[in-house]
């Protein structure tokens, strides 16, 4: 399960790096929805001046209806996500109010799945976004899906938001990816199959320092683990093995 997901999110992130416009971003989000085989994906951003941008797979009809009725007022997902930055499973929200129940019923008639995970994202200077994965299924299946895939969904959400911010600012690239020579050396050793201890010895540094280099490189590459960081560095041409 995990490897299936990895196999989807990694190429998605690589494609995201090529995206130049919000239209292209929207296309990528729809493609991600299809490859994840979920009902819907929603990305919605509000920047510090209140400007909004959304890329989502909900039907136009539902989006229009949602805006007309100003459902954000009562949508428990929106209401709960303003003040948190940890992901929220829709199962944990209170859907019991009368207005909320009717909203939910209407949403489901419009093809919205009964399960969802919404990931709040905080960007620089008060920017805020929400990335939602929406699916149909029973509670156990969904809990299992979230548990298995949370790390990858966090990463996808992070990259979508970074890209949206980058397009909004009109930058070519947030910061051209650059590994320090030591970070590159460290990943190269690992790519060659050396253990951490051996790599540290060959680079004449402590294993502790080596771990810091790995961690820095991993963060820069937006990778979820060391193996992933090595793979990205190789693919991106940052290290040559």
């Amino acid at each position, binding site marked *: 399960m995990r490897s299936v997901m990895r196999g989807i999110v990694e190429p998605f992130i690589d494609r995201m790096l090529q995206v130049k416009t919000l239209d292209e971003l929207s296309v990528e989000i729809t493609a991600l929805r299809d490859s994840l085989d979920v009902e819907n994906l929603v990305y919605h951003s509000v920047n510090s001046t209140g400007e909004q941008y959304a890329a989502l797979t909900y039907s136009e009809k539902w989006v229009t209806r949602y805006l007309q009725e100003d459902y954000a007022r009562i949508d428990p997902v929106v209401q709960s996500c*303003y003040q948190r*930055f*940890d992901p929220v499973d829709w199962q944990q929200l209170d859907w019991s109010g009368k207005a909320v129940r009717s909203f939910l019923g209407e949403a489901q008639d419009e093809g919205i799945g009964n399960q969802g995970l919404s990931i709040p994202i905080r960007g*620089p200077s008060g920017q805020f976004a929400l990335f939602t994965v929406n699916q149909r299924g029973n509670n156990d299946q969904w809990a299992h899906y979230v548990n298995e895939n949370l790390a990858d969904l966090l990463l996808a*959400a*992070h990259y979508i938001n970074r890209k949206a911010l980058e397009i909004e600012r009109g930058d070519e690239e947030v910061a051209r990816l650059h590994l320090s020579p030591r970070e590159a050396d460290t990943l190269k050793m690992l790519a060659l199959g050396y253990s951490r201890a051996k790599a540290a010895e060959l680079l004449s540094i402590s294993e502790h320092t080596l771990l810091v280099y790995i961690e820095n490189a991993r963060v820069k590459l937006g990778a979820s*683990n060391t193996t992933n960081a090595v793979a990205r560095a190789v693919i991106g041409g940052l290290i040559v093995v």
Partner: protein
Amino acid sequence: MLRYLKAGELGRYPKLADTMFADRASQFHARLGWDVTVSTEGQERDEYDATDPVYVIWEGRDGAHQGSMRFLPTTGPTMLADHFRHLVPGTPIQSPYIWETTRFCLTPGAPSRVSATLMLGGLELGLAHGLSHAVAVFDARMVRIYRQLGWPPAILGTTGTGREAISAGLWAFEPELRPMLARKARLSVELSQFWIDRALGRGAAGQLTG
């Protein structure tokens, strides 16, 4: 008990919140002499308290604060990014897997196991959210404490020397640390899991409130 509270939930625990902000004034203003803002009611708050952080708080039997720390995601504004960028040269740390922790605070006279308890709470919070690391800025006096607790950070950068040194460090969230920290906190691993499950509304513990 260990509480994991979002800023919006503090209002449900007025005594806990009031004593936390008062203890922060005692620690950071009175004892350490930091340049922090203390209200007329004797409470210390900063701009990050206004950005909906998550607090890990050790609550005494009387409902008062005995120790706490605060977490914010590194993708948004953080102390490290806003005030201590020089400690970590190069690409800023902005990862969905790394949260920043600040305002590590103990009530005057709190038993030493409270430090271990807070670190255990931080670990539980990180593991529960699928995080890889916590990052923090800390001064020289904390280095010894972290070492004694058996969970020292990887140092990313330091300015100053001796007692004046300020460092940024990275803590890896490893489940293997749990039993060691629980032992030092004199808590059972099960109880610790129960508290985090309850806070996140998971499992049987999630059905309870309080």
